[in-house]
C-alpha cells in the first residue's frame, strides 16, 4: 500500500523547498527520489534533504517528543532539521539530513559493531523529559492483527504455530501489559535499514527512524539480530560481533558476561513471531508458498510451544 499521489507530490515539493530555502517555486537541477513508500511511511529525498510523511494516525505529541530526543542525541540518532512536525494532508512530515544507508546488495558489510555501540549508548541515556513507551511490542501485536485479518479469508497450515507461539508470550511482549524492569531509552525497531552514515558517504553511523523510540525493555533492540541468529539465518560470527560490541560499550540490556539468552529470550521470541507473521501475511497476499527462510521462522515458532502439544495430544493414553 502506498501513499496517495497528492501526498507524494506535496511531500516532494516540501523536500525541495526545505533543501533550497528561499529559492521559490522555480525548478532546480537536482532530482527528487522516493526512498520508501510503505503503509507506515513515505520518504522522499531531494539533494541533501529527506522528507518523511509518517503513518496516518501518528500521535503528534509523541512524535514531537521523539524528535526532541533525536535532536538532543546527535551522537546516536540522526538529528532532525526541524523539531516540530509539519502537517501535510492527513500526515505529519519531518525533515532530515540525507545519510548514506547500508548497501542492501552488500549486507556482509553490515556495521554490526557500530549498530551495537549506538544501541548501548542509547540505552544508557537518561531521557530529558517524558517519552512514550517504546513501540516494539505494539508493532508485534499489529503484525499479528494483520495476520489474523489475512487468515480470515484464507486459512494456512503455518498459522497454528505462529499464533500459538504468540499466545505463549508474556502479556507485556504482546503489548497487553506494561513492560517490566527498569525502563531504558530504546529504538524500538532496529534492523539494518535503520543505520546511515552522516554526513554521507563516510561520516559516522547514526540510527534513524524515531517512530518507535521510547522507554522500555532494552533487550528488544537486540532481539531482531538475536532472532535471526536463533533461527539459523544470521551466522554465529556476526551475532558474536554484535553482542560483544554491545557488551564492550556497556549496554545494560544483557549481563556483561555469561549467557545473554535469559534476557533476550522473550523479545527474540516476539520478534521471531512478528517476522513469521509478516512473512505469512505477505505469502497469503501473494498467494505463494513460504520460502525456506520464512519457513525457518515458522519452524522456530513451532519449537517454542512443543511441550503443551505433547502433553495434551502426543502421549498415548
Amino acid at each position, binding site marked *: 500500500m502506498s501513499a496517495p499521489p497528492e501526498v507524494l507530490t506535496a511531500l516532494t515539493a516540501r523536500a525541495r523547498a526545505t533543501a533550497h530555502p528561499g529559492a521559490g517555486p522555480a525548478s532546480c537541477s537536482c532530482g527528487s527520489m522516493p526512498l520508501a513508500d510503505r503503509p*507506515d511511511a513515505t520518504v522522499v529525498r531531494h539533494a541533501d534533504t529527506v522528507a518523511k510523511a509518517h503513518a496516518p494516525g501518528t500521535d503528534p505529541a509523541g512524535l514531537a517528543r521523539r524528535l526532541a530526543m533525536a535532536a538532543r542525541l546527535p551522537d546516536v540518532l540522526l538529528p532532525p532539521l526541524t523539531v516540530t512536525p509539519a502537517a501535510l494532508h492527513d500526515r505529519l512530515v519531518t525533515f532530515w539530513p540525507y545519510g548514506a544507508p*547500508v548497501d*542492501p546488495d552488500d*549486507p*556482509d558489510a*553490515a556495521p554490526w559493531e557500530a549498530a551495537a555501540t549506538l544501541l548501548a549508548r542509547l540505552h544508557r541515556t537518561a531521557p530529558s523529559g517524558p517519552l512514550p513507551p517504546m513501540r516494539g511490542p505494539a*508493532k508485534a501485536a499489529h503484525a499479528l492483527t494483520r495476520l489474523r485479518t489475512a487468515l480470515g479469508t484464507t486459512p494456512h497450515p503455518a498459522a497454528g504455530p505462529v499464533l500459538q507461539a504468540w499466545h*505463549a508470550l*508474556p502479556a507485556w511482549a504482546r503489548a497487553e501489559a506494561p513492560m517490566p524492569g527498569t525502563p531504558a531509552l530504546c529504538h524500538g*525497531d532496529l*534492523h*539494518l*535499514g535503520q543505520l546511515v552514515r552522516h554526513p554521507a558517504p563516510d561520516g559516522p553511523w547514526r540510527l534513524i527512524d524515531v517512530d518507535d523510540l521510547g522507554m522500555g525493555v532494552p533487550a528488544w533492540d537486540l532481539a531482531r539480530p538475536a532472532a*535471526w*541468529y*536463533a*533461527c*539459523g*539465518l*544470521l*551466522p*554465529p*560470527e*556476526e*551475532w*558474536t560481533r554484535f*553482542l560483544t560490541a554491545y557488551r564492550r560499550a556497556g549496554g545494560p540490556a544483557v549481563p556483561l558476561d555469561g*549467557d*545473554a*539468552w535469559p534476557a*533476550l*529470550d522473550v523479545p*527474540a*521470541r516476539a520478534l*521471531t513471531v512478528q*517476522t513469521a507473521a*509478516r512473512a505469512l501475511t505477505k505469502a497469503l497476499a501473494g498467494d505463494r508458498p513460504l*520460502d*525456506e*527462510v*520464512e519457513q*525457518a521462522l515458522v*519452524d*522456530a515458532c513451532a*519449537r*517454542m*510451544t512443543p*511441550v*503443551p502439544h505433547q*502433553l*495434551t495430544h502426543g*502421549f*498415548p*493414553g
Partner: protein
Amino acid sequence: MQCPKCHAPMHTYNRNGVQIEQCSGCRGIFLDYGELEALTQLEAQWVKPVPPAPPAAPQAYPAPPAPAWGAPHGGGHHGGHYGGHGGHHRHKSFGHMLFSS
C-alpha cells in the same frame, strides 16, 4: 505449586501414571524423582529408534549460546545456515529481511 523459575502457577498433568507439573507461564516442566526414567521408558515403547545423527562438523571456536527453540542445525550449533557464510551468498529472502521491520 509455583514455578521455581518464573513463579507462575504450575498445573499437573497425569499421563500413564506419570505426574507432570508444567508452568503456566514459562512452560517449564517439573519432574519428581524417577519420572524422567518413567517417561523415557514410555517414549521408548512408542517411538521407533532413529538412526544416529551424523557427527558434527569440526569447529574452531565454540558456538555462542542459543535458545532451546533455535534452529537445530543453525542457531550456533553447527552448519546449515540459511543465511550462508564463508564465501556463500545470503539467501535473497534473508537479505531483504535484514532491512525490514
